[in-house]
């Protein structure tokens, strides 16, 4: 579904990704793991067209999307949920969700998405007229994911959804991710929480300072000695 070949990304003259190659097949959850500064968020932002690509090729659903503008990519059904609960604090929950469906002009379509999303996140239904900024951290992350779902994505790019959240809320986030996959979307998950990610991921990639150093199934990576030593703290 998503095929990234030899992707290079730089900030100014500093190259952050030195040509990474990975792919996500339809219906999969794929985790990209790595430490701070490994280039995980950079990779996801380059795929969704928010950062410019220096070299390489990105294909989605068989189409070359390298260098396409971000709104085109969202329109094709590849939607990013940015890192750090980036909701719009001054807009209400409802308005935040409406913005998620910004590119969907059909009102009925939008209503359906909204009903479906509020069904998954009943708490957001309760708070739909509250400003996004007044939600708790966990609720904000849920809103960010819900906003991503409003665009009816074929594939969701999740950037560190568990960042800075209490363990009990992290549980729920990972539960939601599995539910989303069951509903038919493909997921690329970028995380620092290796244990939890690998438990739900079909396959995983390990990113180290701009290079992919390891690729395997989620289960295999969970028991891999070097992964255990570096990322699982065992």
């Amino acid at each position, binding site marked *: 579904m998503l095929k990234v070949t030899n992707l290079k990304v730089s900030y100014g003259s500093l190259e952050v990704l030195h040509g990474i190659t990975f792919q996500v097949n339809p219906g999969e959850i794929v985790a990209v793991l790595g430490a701070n500064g490994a280039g995980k968020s950079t990779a996801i932002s380059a795929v969704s067209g928010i950062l410019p690509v220096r070299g390489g090729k990105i294909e989605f659903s068989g189409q070359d999307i390298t260098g396409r503008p971000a709104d085109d990519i969202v329109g094709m059904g590849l939607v990013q949920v940015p890192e750090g609960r980036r909701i719009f604090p001054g807009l209400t929950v409802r308005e935040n969700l409406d913005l998620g469906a*910004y590119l969907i002009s059909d009102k009925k379509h939008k209503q359906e998405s909204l009903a479906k999303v509020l069904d998954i996140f009943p708490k957001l239904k309760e708070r739909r007229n509250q400003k996004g900024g007044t939600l708790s951290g966990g609720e904000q992350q849920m809103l960010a994911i819900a906003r991503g779902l409003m665009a009816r994505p074929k594939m969701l790019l999740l950037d560190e959804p568990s960042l800075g959240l209490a363990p009990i809320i992290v549980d729920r986030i990972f539960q939601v991710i599995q539910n989303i996959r069951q509903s038919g979307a493909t997921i690329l998950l970028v995380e620092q929480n290796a244990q939890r990610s690998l438990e739900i991921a079909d396959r995983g990639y390990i990113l180290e300072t701009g290079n992919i150093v390891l690729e395997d199934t989620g289960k295999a990576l969970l028991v891999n000695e070097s992964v255990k030593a570096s990322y699982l703290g065992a």
Partner: protein
Amino acid sequence: MKSTLKILLWPLWIGLLCWPFMGLRAAGLTAFGLLLLFLLFRFFGRKIGLFKDIFLKMPGRELAGRVPRKIWLGAALLAAMMLPLVINKYYLDITITAGIYIVLALGLNIIVGLAGLLVLGYIAFYAAGAYAYAILSTQYNVSFFAALPAAAVLALLLGLVLGVPTLRLRGDYLAIVTLGFGEIARIVLNNWDGLTGGPNGIMHIPKPSLFGLKLGSPVHLYFIVLAMIILVSFVIDRLNNSRLGRALVAMREDETAARACGVNTVKLKLLAFSLSAMTAGMMGVVFAAKMSFVSPESFTFWESIMVLCMVVLGGMASIPGVILGAAALVVLPEIFRQFQNYRMLVFGAAMVAMMIFRPQGLLPSKRRRLELEDPTLPPINQERVDITFHKINQQSKTSEVI
């Protein structure tokens, strides 16, 4: 304790500022006067609070709140229509000037208040409109109402020329580039003698007329300006409540997240920028017709700053706020005329005081108010354990989320 210290230090600081040009005695008196004023305000401030409570509980206010917005707007419009009947020529002239600035400020508000982009060379579009009408009318006999759309198109094109390469810049960089643009525009006008008459400007610009009907009197101009205010307010109000308006707020709050939602931020910025530029261009035509003379002196950097001050003082993104801010900044200097040289000092001090005590502006928009002062907004990466989550988890052991 802290506020008491503040009350003592403020007059002292202002007194020190005034010393060099007012002399020690006058500066000391000013400081002392301010101190008295602050103390008085502090003393009566509590009582004002009391009055406020009584006022809020008055039945009349309840009633006022229940009157629909349409009736308020209608009453305001009626009052505005009657205004020329009750004021003399001098005040009418000031009112027209205020009106022109109101529209300019409303236009700048689209890009600064709604889109959140700091643009400092705004007056260049105003100048473009004014010169467009000056040249078209004196050399090609183009009428006022034909020049309006022409000036709007010219300003739009200029806006695109400036906007396409620069709108990728953020914050300070955009401010500096647009500042440079404003200066370039003024210098070009000053030096292109063949077309603009250089520093002498262009004289004998005709007054507006429609189908041979002369509309040159101040009262006519007043109604033209009033119509522009209504038109621009209407457009901004519609924009605010539309899908695009929400996208503008989203972009202002978090550009990356807005892009991740599929908002084409470049297009949106260009749209806001061109709307702003067009408004300024049209007002330039009105200005040239009112003055019947244009010269580069009318379009200095100071003018850009004034219009920006109107937007900030009134309350960014709020239509009534911007109208009030613009009116205040045109009318107050007229009132302060008796202070002569100290006029600008009083003005500056008032701006500083405003930014300290009421940074959100006189009549802030609801959204802006929340962005600026709501202390309940958590910083984005702050760790927060939400107790309600635990409770729900304990009550219902469903695997459903939240």
